[in-house]
């Protein structure tokens, strides 16, 4: 009962309307347009488009998770690609175990690459991954545990700002090197691929693809509500206070270490879930997912959308990845120029991203409409943008 009333406060009435409309559009309209309309219809959503949208939904969840720790707690993690990939590997391990005897070597227990390496039995850390629910638990626990340990080490020592960013970047760099090693038992260079089934369904089948797409949308919606719960709670305000003046929060008696540790761990878990949803949709997970460039790209999604607002992060993930798909099709050599320029433009001219730009335009329009309130709202707006930077 209390929870329900608290849930209702997560969004304004209009916010809930938008949320539900978008959710219905995503999980009902798109699959229906895919399944019912003939391919020649202008409203038909081709299956590749559905898969693409499914990927974007995973990226949106990933962007959301980064926004929690960066946009709200002010700690820019450059390791979120790592948590994403760890979640993906956990899912990949489950999918590998589902291959069974259908691998090239037909070994019922060992994945092909282990047979290739002349391993005789499954390493201990692969045990249990044949079970879907165990694997799903690990999808959250592995990134969460890593974030907890790393966060405990860094936040406790009051490592903040760019130092935290560099350490998290070093973490993914180390992970990438580690996963490239064949002896690690995660398929080395090639990673995990050639998946056949998930929960008994063929991963290539259209029905499975739609199912994964809908699951991604629902998990994103759930992730959004959880994040929303956190940021609208008093803890969310403590986090924003930490972002503004970390040491002052300590003098109020809050444990900055614990607050950041909590949100970092939750954030890493969300990133792991995003990775787990991503892997069966693209059919492969390999160590390049750990590359530091990937992690830093997530930051630009959030920055483009507008950090410090959850829907901004989601918007940013869709916008930037949409642009990426467009460029890699139309003019691949310009994509990196565009992405690079995006980093610069966002930091210089759009400190609050698209969301901030929209708010600015709205403000300007409102000011024009009611000239009398101009001075006051200007003062507030300036002060906010000054510190939002």
């Amino acid at each position: 009962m209390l929870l329900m009333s608290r849930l209702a406060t997560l969004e304004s009435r209009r916010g809930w309307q938008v949320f539900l409309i978008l959710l219905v559009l995503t999980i009902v309209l798109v699959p229906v347009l895919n399944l019912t309309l003939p391919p020649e219809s202008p409203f038909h959503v081709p299956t590749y488009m559905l898969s693409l949208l499914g990927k974007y939904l995973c990226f949106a969840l990933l962007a959301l998770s980064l926004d929690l720790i960066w946009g709200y707690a002010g700690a820019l993690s450059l390791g979120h690609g790592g948590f994403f990939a760890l979640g993906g590997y956990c899912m990949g391990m489950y999918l590998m175990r589902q291959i069974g005897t259908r691998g090239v070597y037909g070994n019922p227990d060992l994945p092909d690459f282990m047979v290739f390496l002349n391993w005789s039995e499954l390493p201990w850390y692969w045990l249990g991954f044949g079970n879907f629910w165990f694997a799903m638990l690990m999808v959250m626990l592995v990134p969460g545990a890593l974030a907890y340990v790393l966060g405990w080490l860094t936040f406790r020592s009051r490592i903040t700002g760019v130092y935290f960013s560099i350490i998290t970047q070093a973490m993914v760099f180390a992970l990438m090197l580690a996963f490239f090693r064949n002896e690690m038992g995660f398929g080395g260079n090639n990673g995990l691929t050639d998946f056949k089934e998930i929960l008994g369904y063929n991963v290539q089948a259209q029905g499975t693809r739609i199912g994964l797409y809908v699951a991604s949308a629902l998990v994103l919606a759930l992730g959004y509500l959880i994040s929303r719960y956190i940021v609208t709670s008093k803890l969310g305000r403590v986090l924003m206070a930490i972002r503004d003046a970390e040491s002052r929060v300590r003098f109020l008696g809050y444990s900055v270490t614990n607050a950041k540790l909590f949100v970092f761990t939750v954030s890493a878990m969300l990133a792991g879930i995003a990775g787990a949803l991503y892997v069966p949709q693209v059919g492969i997970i390999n160590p390049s997912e750990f590359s530091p460039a990937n992690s830093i790209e997530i930051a630009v999604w959030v920055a483009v959308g507008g950090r410090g607002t959850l829907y901004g992060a989601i918007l940013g993930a869709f916008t930037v990845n949409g642009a990426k798909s467009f460029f890699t099709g139309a003019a691949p050599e310009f994509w990196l120029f565009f992405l690079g320029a995006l980093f610069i433009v966002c930091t210089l001219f759009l400190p609050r991203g698209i969301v901030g730009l929209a708010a600015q335009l709205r403000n300007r329009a409102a000011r024009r409409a009611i000239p009398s309130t101009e001075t006051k709202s200007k003062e507030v707006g300036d002060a906010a943008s000054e510190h939002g930077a």
Partner: protein
Amino acid sequence: MQRASMAPDAAEIVLPAESTPVRPIRQPAGSILYLDGVSVSFDGFKALNSLSLVIDKGEMRTIIGPNGAGKTTMMDVITGKTKPNTGDVLFNASVDLTKMDEAAIANLGIGRKFQKPTVFEHLSVFENLELALKTDRGTFATLFFHLTGPQARRIDEILGVIGLGDRRKEKAGALSHGQKQWLEIGMLLMQEGQLLLLDEPVAGMTDHETETTARLLLDIARERSIVVVEHDMEFVRALGAKVTVLHEGSVLAEGSIDTVQADHRVIEVYLGR
């Protein structure tokens, strides 16, 4: 309540020579804050040099001193921001503050207002006070916190005291300098601490605001102990409390405002160089 000796030569007693073992100037019993032989050095520079200071329960104390006298460092030591190289810092005559971090010390009931007003600029005035509200500071308790009616009324009450009732929804960053000072004092009140440390609470305030602040502090001081660091002599006089003069990290003189202003060494320190 007041210490007996206030004559200039009494200050000699609280200034032990560096080589002699530091003797407590008096027993900590009955004090709210007890500093004994506290030294802090940064790269050879002694910010605090065997500082000893006792604040009684319910006492208001003003601390003055030229720049670099160690006033802010003293506050840092008390609130756990800086760990002293040597010396004891006791709260309520029993709790060793040197072993605790800032959050733990704050939760004991020691509140601090900074020299530069530090409020959370992105949060509203109301939210700033809500964060300072005395509640369970645990992370999960904070996550599931729900503001009760009495708590909301308490915030309203403080909003009235600091005169920001009509600006409760505005972002704290939009307040004027003096209003931020008051908001920070309001946050101290919300914490309901036993000991409040205020670093230059009236800096940048108009005369009128300064007067109001003095009245507010005197009002607060009835229920708790307060240490005020201030440069504004008019304000110090208005508070009418015992004054401690710090110089080069130690206590130079202690007594009423008139006594210390007459002390030739204090005059020398302020004017002589």
